[in-house]
């Protein structure tokens, strides 16, 4: 009851007002639910002063009845509300008091749910794929056991080309029904691809420009030490379209390195040589450790080599019947492990293939 209402009641029905204030104090003073029930019975029960008052109304003079009838019922509702509120309050207090005694050690470990890990190489390849998908590329694939033609010849690296010797190729013993057993070993037509570049040729054989693809997968070279494993993974990119320039290659690769490595990493393009690109370049990214000032990890140059690239050599177009006067393009290739090593600070390539769960679970 608002103070103003109570004042009016006091003026017009002082007895009723006194009854109300007494009952209210009784209810609010109840310290627990038992006391509150007693208070409720004493203030609102059949034998309470209020009930008796209400019951006596018919016996009152006619002019007093409306006032006391209305006022009495109002007081009753008020008191009932107070009992309800007080009860809720007392229950909340009782619950809090009991919760205060319930304690557990929140520093104990959580229930162990199994959580596995995709291999860092898979994660890195997915990351690279997604960056290029965002640029409108599709993902192309090709066989790992490959023909010499796709791995070398159609990439402008014919037999006896000196660039071949740099590749340390694994050769495959061919299976041909028409070939006598004796010459199988000597044959040199099938190999384990030494790079993902053969997929370039396969893609161009199958579609006309525009071509925007990246190819990721396993490649093989006869080499094994801390920086070489005989099997590793590469990313290859190929774009062929009208009016593609070296500046497009630079912009694309800079976008990629910033997305992949994050931050403001600079790139630079150095001239290089690959048989299937002309001009050919190698791409360096600025060293993050030293910020380009030079440190041990970048051999004091401030730069880390990350990939080879270039404009597709017109000789390659000849193999797939593209017209180099109408279209131009670029290609690039990089080692997935190397990208992951640079990004995550992994010192030894062989860790990727030890499959030690202590390594696998770090990423």
């Amino acid at each position, binding site marked *: 009851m608002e103070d103003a209402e109570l004042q009016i009641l006091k003026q017009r029905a002082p007895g009723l007002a006194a009854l109300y204030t007494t009952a209210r104090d009784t209810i609010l003073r109840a310290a627990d639910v038992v006391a509150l029930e007693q208070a409720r019975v004493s203030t609102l029960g059949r034998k309470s002063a209020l009930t008796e008052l209400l019951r006596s109304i018919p016996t009152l003079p006619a002019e007093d009845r409306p006032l006391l009838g209305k006022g009495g019922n109002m007081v009753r509702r008020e008191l009932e509300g107070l009992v309800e509120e007080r009860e809720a309050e007392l229950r909340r207090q009782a619950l809090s008091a009991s919760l205060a005694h319930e304690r557990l050690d929140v520093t104990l470990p959580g229930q162990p749910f199994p959580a*596995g890990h995709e291999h860092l190489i*898979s994660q890195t390849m997915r990351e690279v794929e997604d960056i290029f998908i965002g640029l409108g590329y599709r993902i192309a694939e090709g066989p790992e056991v490959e023909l010499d033609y796709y791995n070398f010849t159609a990439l402008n690296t014919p037999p006896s080309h000196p660039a071949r010797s740099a590749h340390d190729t694994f050769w495959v013993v061919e299976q041909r029904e028409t070939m006598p057993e004796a010459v199988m070993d000597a044959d040199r037509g099938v190999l384990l691809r030494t790079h993902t570049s053969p997929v370039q040729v396969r893609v161009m054989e199958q579609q006309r420009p525009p071509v925007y693809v990246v190819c990721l997968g396993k490649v093989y070279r006869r080499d094994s030490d801390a920086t070489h494993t005989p099997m590793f993974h590469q990313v290859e990119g190929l774009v062929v379209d009208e009016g593609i320039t070296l500046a497009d290659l630079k912009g694309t690769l800079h976008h990629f390195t910033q997305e992949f490595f994050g931050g403001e990493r600079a790139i630079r393009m150095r001239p290089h040589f690959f048989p299937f690109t002309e001009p050919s370049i190698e791409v360096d990214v600025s060293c993050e450790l030293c910020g380009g000032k030079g440190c041990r990890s970048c051999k004091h140059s401030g730069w880390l080599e990350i990939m080879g690239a270039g404009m597709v050599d017109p000789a390659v177009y000849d193999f797939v019947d593209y017209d180099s006067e109408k279209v131009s393009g670029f290609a690039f290739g990089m080692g997935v492990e190397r990208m992951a090593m640079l990004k995550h600070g992994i010192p030894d390539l062989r860790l990727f293939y030890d499959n030690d769960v202590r390594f696998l679970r770090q990423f």
Partner: protein
Amino acid sequence: MRVPFSWVKEYVDWRGSVEELAELLTMSGTEVEGIDWVGAPADPDNLSRFVVGKVLTRDKHPNADKLSLCTVEVGEAHGGVHQIVCGADNFQAGDTVAVSLTGATLESGLKLKKANLRGVESHGMMMSEQELGYEEKSPGIVILPDEWIVGAPLQDYLPVSEAVLELELTSNRPDCFSIYGIAREVAAAARLELAPPPTAGPAVLGGAPAAESLAVEVADPDLCPRYAAQVIRGVRVGDSPAWLKARLTHAGMRPISNVVDVTNYVMLGWGQPLHAFDAGKIRGAKLVARRAHVGERIVTLDGMERTLDDHMVVIADVERPLVIAGVFGSIDAEVDAHTTDLVLEAANFSGPNILRTELHTGIRSEASNRFEKGLDANLVPGGLDFASRLLADLCGGVVAPGTVDVWSEAPSLPRLSYRPAKADDLLGYAVPAQEQAGILRRLECEVDEGGAPSAPSHAAPSTAEWTITPPTFRPDLVREVDLIEEVGRIAGYDLAPETLPRHRTAGGLTGPQQVRRAIRRALAGCGLDEAITYTFVAPDALDPLGLPEGDVRLSPVKLSNPMSVEQSVMRTMLLPGLIGAVRANVDRLNDPPNLFEIGSVYLWDDQTSPAPAQAAEPGAVLPHEPEAVGIVLAGPLEVESWTGAGRPTDFSTLKGIVEAALRALRLTADFVPLGDAVAHFPYLHPGKAALVSVPGAGGVGAVGLLRPDVAAAYGVDDLKLYFAALALDRIAPVALKTATFEDLGAYPPAAQDLAVIVDRGIAAADVIAVARRAGGKLTRDVHVFDVYEGGQVPADKRSLALRVVMRSPERTLSERDIAGVRAKILTALERELAAALR
């Protein structure tokens, strides 16, 4: 290649630091791997302590027989005359010598102090070539030419300290395999003047013409396009001067004798390999360049006897081979200490043939390394002139007039059509036409800007067409695009702006690529770690499996040149690699891991792909490379914790994982006992394994417990290994189909549990199938929620607790509906499977 900084500067006037030169070379296409500082420390203070001196007096040391006491003039700036004690014997008063003064730090790191040698003070040291770092061992001190100015810094005459650029050269640039060639690159990139070639011939000729002493015949001009020789008479074979030893040593070659050193010096400086014969050892006064005979033998200079074949070229006299042409000399015509007359060879050999000879003999020399890349036949005369002048100057020889020069054909000069505008188009940035012409000229291309007669001389740059004639030492410049690369790299790729291609296609993953990602994510989500194992394995890797004879998995793709037998065949299954990964982890005391791998296997099966006609000989095929998923479980996924005991891995774990992985592809699978297929999967426990089939795809693989004897054979004795192999190539076509919405139903479902006792031999799947069918269309799901054996259940039976979930799309089910379904199911189970309600 090792390029001494001071040597390059003989040919180009480079004023910057060696580091700046390295940067210039790297950014113009000659990769500098590092700078190797050799000799004494290069700081100016240290270098000032090395001076030219003159011995004034030489007397016996009063207290030591083997030492002499000298006074040496080193110039006013360095204190005039010093007293120096010296142990060498090869000098006398009046000789000009190399002096290091007190305080100098030598190449070896030794710092010279004022010394007291047997009671006599010594202020400095007269140096030997060993102390200068030019030789491994020197018998005495170095005697310098008398013209050198006493007191002058020694560094002005000899590289006391040298910075050597270590270059990583590419095979397309044979012209860069010489100091002069590198200087040409520097001049082009830095817009400097290149010195004239250092190939001036000898000042004086004498004696009978060369042709009177020597005949040359070239039997195989295709393998030896040019063979030229000069004759030098009366040489004295001996020691090389210090400067020559310094050059060779710093460039990475060992000084041998003045004659050999000159040939090596000219090769390093000019790029043309040379060979010096002792003329007296050539029988019949004739040299023949011919193919070796099959089985012909030669003892090379390293003392090894080599057997040749008829693809290799030798230089022979009338009786025997003397040199494996372009690769390695023999002991038979070697220059020795008694040699007086020389035949000096400069020749040109076929690059690919030299490469082949290197591969077959295993020999790779400085000379063959150059020849294999295809040298310019026009280097020959300069090489002969350069070397014969030095032989005359340094070895006292007299060069005979005339050169014997057998040259089948001068290389024709390609004339290339070149559009400057095309360069701008390909590079994406404009290089002014005049600059393009300048770059090409600095690279010694002839540039004719006149173009076709129809083109007016003031033709707009966009249509200009030039004719370019590249120099013969640039065999890599044969097309317009090759010239564009030259312009681009010398102008600098840092000029290129960064743009993105204008037109683009829509990117995305193919269906199978999405499937691969989804299953990988699902398996990792189940708690498995992804392994990537080598795809090549040992030929006996599958031996423990007991595969039937003739099985395609036993005929792997074989490598003809594996690195080791352990990695000599391509895998036909993922299993051995995954077990290897388990074992590697256990060996490292990790908990037994649960792994999966997604990758190709390589099969010579009936799905090999024939090579396209343009790509290989007829009949060539590539193996089938289907992609597979392998799973191996070696330990618990729910591990022990304070919250509970964990749960050991069993068949249901593996099955649950496979189901979850397939569910991620929106697929379900049936698992059926192996049955007859046990013959195909002999490595799986026959009673604890199943075939997996996917609706729409059929059989896609098998799952089960690996036989304990198989696991033991792989060295995993004490672990139960659960293994699954799924053919991803068969799953992918039906996977990730678009899901169609199914109404949730407005009315509540009702569940009924019933436990039935059936024979142990009856599969749970059969019980469920009967129940579902009998339950009719109100039955939405039936599944087993408990299995009980033993107790009151008879020994040959088991109790299956089924939960039947019913729902109607039209109304809330009544007690009657539910009881009806329950009764129908029980009746059918009883009738068809002799099941009894428990």
